[in-house]
């Protein structure tokens, strides 16, 4: 039996976005945004439980989040949420066989049918929509929009 333990790069291999194009960056962003959103979700459940301490406890918690830092963190959360949603829909469609091309004979230069322009557009759309949502969120939180 061959020893293939050297192929296990662990976290270093997972977070290295180089060499494989935008799809690999989307893979990394999907995991980072997923972890970030899970941490936020747990924190959100905890912070909303402060309402059980009455008006004083709630106002104290709200005051600690309604700061410039708090708004920026929430804007990043909004960006992660939008990217994770749009890219997640793209991934689900891909797993369902939508937009991955049809099987063909492998001819040189062996361009993979699944890594086509449709999915690249999906990834770039997710990034652009996340940026727009972040800007909108910042405008709302800083009172520019009602």
């Amino acid at each position: 039996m061959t020893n293939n333990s050297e192929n296990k790069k662990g976290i270093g291999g997972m977070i290295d976005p180089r060499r494989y194009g935008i799809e690999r960056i989307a893979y990394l962003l999907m995991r980072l945004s997923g972890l970030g959103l899970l941490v936020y979700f747990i924190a959100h459940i905890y912070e909303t439980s402060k309402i059980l301490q009455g008006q004083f406890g709630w106002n104290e918690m709200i005051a600690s989040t309604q700061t410039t830092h708090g708004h920026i963190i929430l804007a990043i959360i909004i960006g992660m949420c939008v990217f994770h949603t749009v890219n997640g829909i793209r991934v689900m469609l891909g797993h369902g066989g939508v937009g991955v091309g049809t099987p063909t004979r492998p001819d040189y230069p062996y361009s993979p049918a699944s890594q086509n322009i449709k999915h690249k557009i999906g990834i770039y759309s997710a990034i652009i929509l996340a940026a727009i949502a972040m800007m909108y969120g910042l405008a709302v939180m800083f009172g520019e929009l009602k």
Partner: protein
Amino acid sequence: MRESIIMKIHYGTALASIGLVAVHILMRLTQDYAESLEYANVIRNYYFLPYAGMLEIILILLSIHGFIGLRVILLELKQGRIYEKVISYSCFIAMIGLITYGTRTIIMVNMG
């Protein structure tokens, strides 16, 4: 449970939560953002039974989706029979804990 079923649950909870989370966020925009977070407004949200029910469904859906996602990431990093069991059970216990804690808040506020 088969991995294919776990992934179907993962995708199903994701799709179901998209619409509900959109409603949850839009509730903050029905009035001024800061005003919507005032104590009286938030309490009123919890007293409104359909909204409280929606919060409970979001809590369950996102807890399941989040911890299945965490499990997927951790199993991509390392494999092994015992490791996979530890990760699976840990994620399940954490998910139940989070749902219980969130449900406690919703019920206690809703019951006054």
